């Protein structure tokens, strides 16, 4: 997607960003560069993106007004040494060298519960520090980035077409969304224009990724309340969805299916219709398993009234995707998308978007049905390989914005003579972790795994 870049003098930085956000633009991401530039990506109400850029190693923080920028400013401070005046206290995010834990909660009877980085199940690595009185959680402090591999920096200097692997391998379960966000940005830089066959193939891939992820999330939520029959039923459906991925595209996680500058995917019309049939069967079985959950009183009792994220909290923390929609925000990067096949798309919503675990679970169910309808339409015809045409002017910077299973993912790519100069990926998980920390206080410690699973965020996507 073409990116309008606007230079802002450092003295007017905070004022300008805050003005734009108050004027209806949404904060997308913030990143710094080696050259001492700080940039903010804004998403306009019509879905177009705009980049505000300033130079300076010391600038006024925007977190007071734009809470969603909190982690990004801490990251820019840790990795690029940028100082943000007014961001107090500036606690390390990626930098773990400060071994001391700064206790944000004090008082009579407050104790800490330290969990991780290694967890009890098969879970990614990250550290949670609960501050609790008895079982009641007062505050959750997160320390992630144990899996930081420096992928963004490692990609610098790689040819734009090849650097897609850095986006893909950032996260296995969001591989399509991340590589597609990168591809849309890189193709803008290269001046390539997509064609209908490519656009449709990419949309199919994105929805198939959402299909198996949503099934996984419902399975995880059932596991979170100890309901093994539900967990296994949805896990079996996820398996069927991933087997379908392998049967049509050769990989259970759809690795290497998205490519810069075209699409190599070739699936015949009968195969597509067969796949559409299996998707319809999976979605129908998921609906029947969901009905079972509705009639299970003990499951419903655990889901309701736990882990509230209010609409205001969702806006302030910059929540995206199913999490934001379950809190009543009508936000979905598929709406009005000009680069993917989502004509007439309307985001799924709930009659009562309460923002609790129950709402987040129900939203997955509603979206699964929507995925079924989308894929039925997209898979009516075969998928043919095609090349993007190079008719547009090359750009210095481009951006990609796609709706991953976990929400809006944005990517900024800056190129220099056909190579990556700076690549920044802000995934949906990155946007949603601060919201999780807001939804947990007030709940009991044993509710945390359930609340966590209702968000079902990746660590790899965040740590990069």
């Amino acid at each position: 997607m073409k990116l309008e870049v606007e230079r802002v003098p450092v003295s007017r930085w905070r004022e300008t960003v805050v003005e734009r956000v108050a004027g209806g633009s949404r904060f997308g991401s913030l990143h710094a560069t080696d050259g001492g530039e700080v940039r903010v990506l804004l998403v306009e109400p019509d879905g177009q993106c705009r980049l505000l850029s300033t130079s300076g190693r010391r600038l006024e923080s925007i977190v007071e007004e734009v809470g969603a920028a909190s982690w990004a400013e801490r990251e820019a401070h840790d990795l690029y040494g940028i100082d943000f005046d007014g961001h107090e206290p500036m606690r390390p995010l990626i930098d773990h060298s400060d071994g001391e834990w700064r206790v944000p909660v004090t008082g009579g009877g407050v104790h800490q519960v330290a969990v991780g980085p290694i967890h009890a199940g098969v879970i990614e690595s990250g550290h949670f520090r609960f501050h609790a009185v008895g079982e009641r959680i007062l505050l959750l402090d997160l320390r992630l980035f144990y899996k930081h591999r420096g992928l963004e920096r490692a990609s610098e200097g790689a040819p734009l077409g090849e650097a897609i692997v850095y986006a893909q391998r950032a996260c296995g379960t969001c591989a399509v969304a991340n590589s597609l966000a990168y591809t849309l940005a890189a193709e803008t830089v290269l001046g390539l224009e997509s064609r209908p066959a490519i656009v449709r193939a990419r949309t199919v891939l994105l929805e198939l990724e959402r299909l198996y992820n949503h099934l996984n999330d419902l399975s995880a939520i059932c596991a979170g309340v100890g309901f093994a029959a539900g967990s296994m039923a949805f896990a079996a459906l996820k398996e069927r969805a991933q087997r379908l991925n392998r049967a049509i595209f050769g990989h259970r996680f759809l690795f290497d299916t998205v490519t810069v500058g075209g699409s190599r995917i070739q699936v015949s019309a009968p195969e597509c219709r067969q796949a559409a049939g299996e998707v319809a069967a999976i979605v129908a079985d998921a609906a029947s398993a969901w009905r079972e959950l509705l009639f299970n009183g003990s499951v419903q009792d655990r889901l309701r009234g736990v882990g509230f994220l209010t609409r205001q909290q969702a806006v302030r923390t910059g929540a995206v995707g199913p999490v934001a929609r379950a809190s009543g925000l009508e936000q979905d990067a598929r709406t009005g998308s000009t680069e993917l096949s989502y004509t007439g798309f309307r985001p799924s919503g709930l009659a009562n978007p309460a923002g609790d675990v129950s709402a987040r679970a129900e939203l997955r169910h509603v979206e699964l049905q929507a995925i079924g309808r989308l894929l039925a339409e997209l898979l009516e015809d075969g998928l043919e390989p095609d090349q993007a045409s190079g008719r547009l002017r090359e750009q210095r910077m481009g951006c990609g914005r796609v709706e991953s299973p976990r929400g809006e993912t944005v990517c900024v790519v800056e190129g220099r003579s056909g190579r990556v100069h700076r690549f920044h990926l802000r995934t949906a998980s990155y946007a949603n972790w601060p919201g999780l920390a807001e939804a947990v206080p007030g709940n009991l410690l044993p509710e945390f795994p359930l609340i966590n699973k209702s968000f079902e965020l990746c660590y790899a996507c965040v740590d990069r």
Partner: protein
Amino acid sequence: MFVLLRDLNRLRVQIGLRRPGSGSLAIRHVDAGSCNACESELNSAANPFYDLQRFGLNVVASPRHADVLLITGPVTRRMREPLLRAYAAMPEPRLVAALGDCALGCNLLGLREEQLDGVESVLPVDIRIAGCPPSPDVIATALQAALAGRGRRSSKRQAVPPPQSNQSP
């Protein structure tokens, strides 16, 4: 719930799962910087299509209970210490399994200063499971083979006669 259980039972019959052998392995998983695909497949190995637990292959919550340390990812600089601590906490004899290409040090992406060259650079590896990511059936097969190998070793030990029961008749 009964409908779900009936569906799952029907699925088991359709798949025709193989009969398990004997013995068991307790597995502790450590994510040392993977992309989450290996975790996803390891979790899938417990789904009704593979049902790893019926072979006596159980993921346990603590390294203190584990026979196998199953590691994913290239071993990031920040996960090196927690990984070594988990290994130190395990009782002997213990096995180390490297799950996935990253753990085997293949095709690594990322900065040299942020990660090592796979599990082998910090721990002796006994079981190697290749793939990006290895699918659940590959994981199941490799772990069953490890279990069979262990079974052979332990059957030698069983040559020692079992201790007399001290319960009164």
